């Protein structure tokens, strides 16, 4: 940060456009995703750093001694760009709004569970009393409701989401949005943390084609894109280009539909695990050899990793046996794999189809939908047997993602998995601040995962950025989203590792 200079412009490549400026509606953790764009305007109230610790962003701190009562301290003199103060009232207003079911916020169940315990102590202090202890309250808040918009602007828009104007207190001011093409922001001169932000202009360019994105960065047409080394290939070594690892392991996973269809039968899920060699699957997916395959929800890098409980391994003979058994029971293995039309995912699903089709008594159908239609189809309609979501799910610090995935009714629990034991262990892990108890609870979680096979977990990877080598101030938050106020253009190749 020493050599940070003011001025300049950066362009972050996004894969798709945002749908609205509603700060309550956030999802995705990948750079270029909607959260990334909202961050520019609203700024993180609190965020999770690379170590998994909750840090203050727009707020000064969020702390608790007992995991039940949490204190949020705001910074003085922070103002929204419409001049209204970024104070306790504003934060509480945003939370209330999120808790209102009409807002349709994904974080509604989470926020509404403690909204009654919110107490404004003074304009810069809020005290939150949770109904039960939650040691992960801070990180969950950072992941699912980190943005605070100007109450005046939100009020003005009323119920019409499309009419919400982006008025935050973040590092940048919304300048223009060309739907489907680009978004442009300019420096917020009244940002609280002067001399930040350094950049005069921040842009998001929407480029759907992976190859085009890579070439664009290589040629200097944009500053950065998120991706994986297998996609970059030799381009990572191109002059003027650097890669930057965001060292938070993520999981590749697919959802088994446990409400209806083939995978309601445990044998089918087990057979699926046995039938496919995950190493080959990852190689098919990324065209790169040598992935370490996770043996359970937590990878070796995680402090909660427990080698005792492992997921079933590749065993084609066993798989065939189970497939035959299922067929004999009159429940032949017939599955529909749903994913979206991305070439990597196409490859992955084709590979799954190809491998499974080689077994007897197996039928596999593929359905590739538009990216935007994946969630509705998998989450809302639950119309799949196996649903593959693209990219990796950041699994640092377990929560809130693990609960979202595995808890009964969790927002990311697309497969409708439900287990009392699992719910209990997850709650236990949250309820204590004691590390050994947490570890024990998560060991049990891994045991249940290995037994129940709620998800198909087949790979893990860290995310990379392909960026211009003169990009400075890379401060990832929440597992990948760069905090825009730190970004600056440096004179030399400061990003090269």
């Amino acid at each position, binding site marked *: 940060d020493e050599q940070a200079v003011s001025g300049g412009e950066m362009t972050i490549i996004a894969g798709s456009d945002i749908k609205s400026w509603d700060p309550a509606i956030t999802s995705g953790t990948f750079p270029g995703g909607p959260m990334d764009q909202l961050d520019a305007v609203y700024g993180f109230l609190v965020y999770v750093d690379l170590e998994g610790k909750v840090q203050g962003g727009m707020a000064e701190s969020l702390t608790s001694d007992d995991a039940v009562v949490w204190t949020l301290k705001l910074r003085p003199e922070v103002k929204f760009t419409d001049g209204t103060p970024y104070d306790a009232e504003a934060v509480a207003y945003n939370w209330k709004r999120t808790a209102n079911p009409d807002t349709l916020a994904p974080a509604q169940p989470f926020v509404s569970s403690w909204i009654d315990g919110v107490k404004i102590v003074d304009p810069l202090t809020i005290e939150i009393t949770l109904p039960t202890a939650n040691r992960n309250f801070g990180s969950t808040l950072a992941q699912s409701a980190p943005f605070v918009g100007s109450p005046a602007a939100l009020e003005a828009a009323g119920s019409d989401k499309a009419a919400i104007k982006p008025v935050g207190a973040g590092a940048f001011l919304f300048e223009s949005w060309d739907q489907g093409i680009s978004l442009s922001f300019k420096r917020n001169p009244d940002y609280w943390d002067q001399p930040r932000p350094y950049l005069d202009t921040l842009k998001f360019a929407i480029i759907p084609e992976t*190859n085009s994105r890579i070439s664009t960065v290589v040629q200097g047409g944009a500053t950065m894109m998120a991706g994986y080394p297998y996609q970059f290939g030799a381009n990572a070594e191109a002059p003027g280009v650097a890669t930057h690892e965001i060292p938070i392991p993520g999981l590749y996973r697919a959802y088994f539909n446990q409400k209806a269809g083939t995978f309601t039968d445990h044998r089918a899920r087990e057979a699926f695990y046995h039938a496919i060699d995950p190493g080959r699957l990852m190689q098919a997916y990324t065209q790169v050899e040598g992935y370490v395959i996770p043996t359970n929800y937590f990878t070796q890098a995680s402090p909660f990793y427990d080698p005792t409980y492992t997921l079933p391994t590749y065993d084609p003979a066993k798989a065939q046996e189970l497939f035959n058994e299922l067929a004999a029971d009159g429940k032949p293995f017939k599955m529909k794999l749903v994913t979206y039309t991305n070439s990597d995912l196409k490859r992955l699903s084709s590979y799954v189809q190809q491998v499974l089709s080689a077994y007897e008594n197996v039928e596999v159908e593929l359905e590739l939908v538009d990216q935007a239609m994946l969630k509705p189809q998998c989450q809302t309609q639950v119309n799949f047997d196996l649903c593959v979501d693209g990219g990796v799910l950041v699994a640092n610090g377990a929560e809130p993602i693990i609960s979202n995935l595995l808890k009964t009714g969790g927002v990311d629990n697309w497969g409708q998995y439900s287990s009392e034991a699992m719910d209990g262990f997850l709650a236990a892990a949250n309820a204590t601040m004691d590390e050994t108890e947490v570890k024990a609870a998560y060991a049990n979680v891994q045991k249940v995962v290995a037994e129940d096979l709620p998800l198909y977990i087949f790979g893990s990877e860290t995310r990379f950025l392909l960026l211009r080598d003169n990009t400075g101030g890379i401060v990832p938050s929440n597992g990948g989203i760069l905090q825009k106020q730190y970004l600056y253009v440096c004179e030399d190749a400061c990003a090269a590792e």
Partner: protein
Amino acid sequence: MTDIGNMPAFKPGPNAKLGDIVRHAMPWSSKLKLPGATPFEMLAAIFLVLLVLVALLVDFVPGLVSPKLPYGDFSQLPEWSLNGLLGTDDIGRSIFSRVLHGARTSMMIVAISTTIALVSGLLLGMLAGYYRGIFERGVDLFANALAAMPSTLVVLAFVAVTGPSVVTIIVVLGIFDIGTYARVAKAGVISQSNRDYVLAARAMGATDGRILLKEILPNLIPALTAVMPTLMAGLIITEGSLSFLGYGIPAPAPSWGGMIASSTDLLSRFPVLIVGPVLAIVLTVYAFNTIGDYLAQRLNNRERES
């Protein structure tokens, strides 16, 4: 497949013409009757014949692996063997086998869409050309509306409605060609109607139906066959574009456009693997266009002579 090793030696001299070489290498090709065709046109015709044969008989090619099952490792470079000739694709299937099976997919779409378009276009065009008036206006309007809509986009929209399906693609592509066939048929009927033989048939007491079906229809065939290959080439391109965009033939059925799309992402790492499907689509379109030109030229000549 003919064994190349058993062919009698033939050394093309410096003055050997391409046609001689072709005729020598493929003796049966001289049975292909294309009066006045250049060697390129002969080659194109042979290629198309081969393509149709491949589409029909690809399952019986000895030694050819399934296009849906793995053959080798992922993204293997080409090697000197039947299945590895063009390398393997990103999940290890034989590209050569997929290219050959892709021919079946393309040919099937071309054949069915063309049949749909030809039959309906002919019907509409004949009515429009013979009865003129309101029929003609209606058909013109229909053809114009089709021309004013980007076909690929409409197929995309339909695919969005019905989900990716071969039937949708075939039907929509077929519908889009109706306009052209109708136009050609209409123009043909109008120009034939100006010939005295139609009048002569009327003078003999022929009914409209007889005149249309027995007198005019046979004379529309040359013009229709002349536009057909070009339209077929267009179908192949459109189908390729759709599959390329991911809205075409559902996986794992092999299609050239889909193969190009999947090699595109890995282009910077395995550029050779795109060669097979690209060559397949380019050569096929080339052959169709060449035959189309040949037929159109012959039609022109015939019209000029008469």
